[in-house]
């Protein structure tokens, strides 16, 4: 009995499967709109979910949930509803790994469009893979110079498959200068530039900080490149003291900034303004300074008071930040808006794609984007190079008190006057 039953059930089940498959094939061939399943569109997303860059990816799941809800059954393309799938891969904060998973997404998952953000260490290797494999790639969250020039971009030719939106070094310099102009100082600036991609770009005599600062009457004292994760900044501090610097700037990783700032206090070095890139991006980094972080200043690319709305959900920037806090119990961070906007542009591009399934057609729609997103209007064509669109950048200070331990207050908006300021620039007490 047993011996005969087992093979027979197996045979039956295989037959049922075949039948079901046949029925499914028939059903999909039938012209019932309700049953018709359009091709699933796949969006690839590479993100540093683990490793040192992981704070950037903290809002990933929040963003995916919101986007999935907004898309619902799918995106309307040419009168048909295509379901959308987001395929996420972890770059482990490692550029080589990022390139590897990007190739996986392209060749294995056969994605229609690649989305990537969160520092040049993620955007560049993924962009290069897309360029080689001829897949449209939309990126953000990396200043455009390290994205464009580090990848060997030629401003005359540009790239074919990779498009980027963010701000550039020229914007952050303008923002910092505007902030410093509001504080009476002796215009002597101390620079902290590490020996890494960002530090070398910022400190570069031609393309970096020195020239624009000199043009506005500021003198930059640059003691030289240091190594990241230095445990001792007394040499820089005594150099700044000797040159009586009243402003400090630089692009410093958070642990180094904590070390520097603590040591500066120990050694009695008290600048009136400190505008730092990178280190002051996330609220946890500023909370690490205790009360000593009050009035430190930083660039702001997105905040809840940016007067923009999501094209996907209709939420304002403030609503989006509020939803994040409600969902996670954490304070908003700047990458939230940009991660959301990547999907805004992606969905908008898909909607305008004439021949979905053809990568060239997707690319064509992407290049013609003109969209008001939660981070501002995005349209390529008027940027510094053809593949780069710029989003507005303002500056602000971290202030004690308010809803969270520290709140980021916009104090300088000369570069984008449509973004309201939240307070006056104050010297560091």
């Amino acid at each position, binding site marked *: 009995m047993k011996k005969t039953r087992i093979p027979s059930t197996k045979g039956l089940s295989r037959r049922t499967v075949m039948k079901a498959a046949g029925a499914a094939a028939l059903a999909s061939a039938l012209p019932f709109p309700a049953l018709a399943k359009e091709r699933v569109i796949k969006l690839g997303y590479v993100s540093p979910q683990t490793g040192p860059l992981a704070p950037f990816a903290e809002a990933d799941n929040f963003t995916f949930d919101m986007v999935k809800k907004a898309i619902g059954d799918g995106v309307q393309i040419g009168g048909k509803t295509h379901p959308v799938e987001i395929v996420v891969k972890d770059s482990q904060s490692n550029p080589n790994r990022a390139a590897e998973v990007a190739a996986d997404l392209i060749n294995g998952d056969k994605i229609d469009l690649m989305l990537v953000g969160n520092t040049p260490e993620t955007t560049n290797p993924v962009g290069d893979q897309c360029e080689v494999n001829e897949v449209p790639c939309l990126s953000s969250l990396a200043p455009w110079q390290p994205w464009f020039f580090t990848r060997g971009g030629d401003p005359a030719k540009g790239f074919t498959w990779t498009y980027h939106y963010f701000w550039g070094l020229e914007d952050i310099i303008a923002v910092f200068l505007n902030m410093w102009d509001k504080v009476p100082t002796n215009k002597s600036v101390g620079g902290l530039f590490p020996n890494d991609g960002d530090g070398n770009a910022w400190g570069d005599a031609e393309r970096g900080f020195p020239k624009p600062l000199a043009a506005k009457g500021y003198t930059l004292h640059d003691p030289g490149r240091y190594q990241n994760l230095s*445990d001792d900044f007394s*040499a820089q501090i005594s150099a700044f003291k000797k040159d009586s610097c009243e402003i400090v700037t630089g692009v410093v990783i958070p642990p180094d900034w*904590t070390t520097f700032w603590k040591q500066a206090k120990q050694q009695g070095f008290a600048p009136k303004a400190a505008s730092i890139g990178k280190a002051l991006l996330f609220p946890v980094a500023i909370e690490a300074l205790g009360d000593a972080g009050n009035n430190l200043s930083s660039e702001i690319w997105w905040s809840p008071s940016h007067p923009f709305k999501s094209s996907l959900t209709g939420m304002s920037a403030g609503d989006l930040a509020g939803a994040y806090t409600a969902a996670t119990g954490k304070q908003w961070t700047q990458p939230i808006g940009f991660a959301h906007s990547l999907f805004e542009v992606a969905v908008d591009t898909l909607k305008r794609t004439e021949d979905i399934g053809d990568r060239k057609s997707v690319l064509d729609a992407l290049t013609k984007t003109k969209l008001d997103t939660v981070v501002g209007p995005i349209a390529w064509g008027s940027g510094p190079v053809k593949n780069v669109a710029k989003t507005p950048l303002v500056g602000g200070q971290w202030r004690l008190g308010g809803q969270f331990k520290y709140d980021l207050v916009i104090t300088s908006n000369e570069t984008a006057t449509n973004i309201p300021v939240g307070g006056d620039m104050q010297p560091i007490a």
Partner: protein
Amino acid sequence: MGGLYALFATGLTLIFGVMRLVNIGHGDLIVLAAFLGLAVVEATGIDPFLSLIIVVPVMAALGYGLQRGLFNLTLGRDILPPLLVSFGLSIIIQNLLLEIFSADSRKLQVGALETASIRLADNLAIGVLPLIVFLCAIAVILGLQVVFYRTTLGRAFRATSDDQQTAQLMGIDNRHLYGLAMAIALGVVAIAGIFLGVRTNFDPSIGPARLIYAFEAVIIGGLGSLWGTLAGGVVLGVAQSIGAKLDPGWQLLAGHLAFLAVLLIRPRGLFPRAYD
């Protein structure tokens, strides 16, 4: 600075000295201790230094457990298996911390003490915190010195380190002893972790970067020598400061150069423990 490096390195030198085990996961254990301190401080609201009362025993217990349950199984003639296990441990700790505490970079707060300093001359000030760290490093090493050279336990440690088989013949349970050594080492690691957390930010992935200084301090000082480790830490710290005075780019390089110079001139370190 040297004091902190010495604290980092003391645990490493202990483990190597007694068990001939190179612990790649040492840096991550330091970060683990810092996160434990953070958890204790957040849960109870006590001062980070007071949290040592809890963190040190917890880490010591963890060390004993790790040694009995994991490292003892791998120790043998071959030095490679324990090395690989400690490497795996390093990765496991990193990812556990990432899972539990997220990737946020954190810090332990001790308020005004962090920025307090003692003015020695017009242009010379010593931070109170670095001073505490340095004194603490000396105290820890003094304490270990006493344990190692004045107690029966210390004699057992030294005996096992010198000749494991003979020590066993004399009735010493080397597995238990290794567990104790690891417990003491992780107790020191706990102190180093808390001081690291007070001094600067830490996140789950920062451990390996701290490991190299510990290694260098150990090698400069001479393998297995406690006072040598302190000297190694100080040499490393001073070399870095001098390098930074010349050019900030030379800060870390100067430390590495001092390390290489010691290796060239005295390959066994400044104060080698024994010629074996």
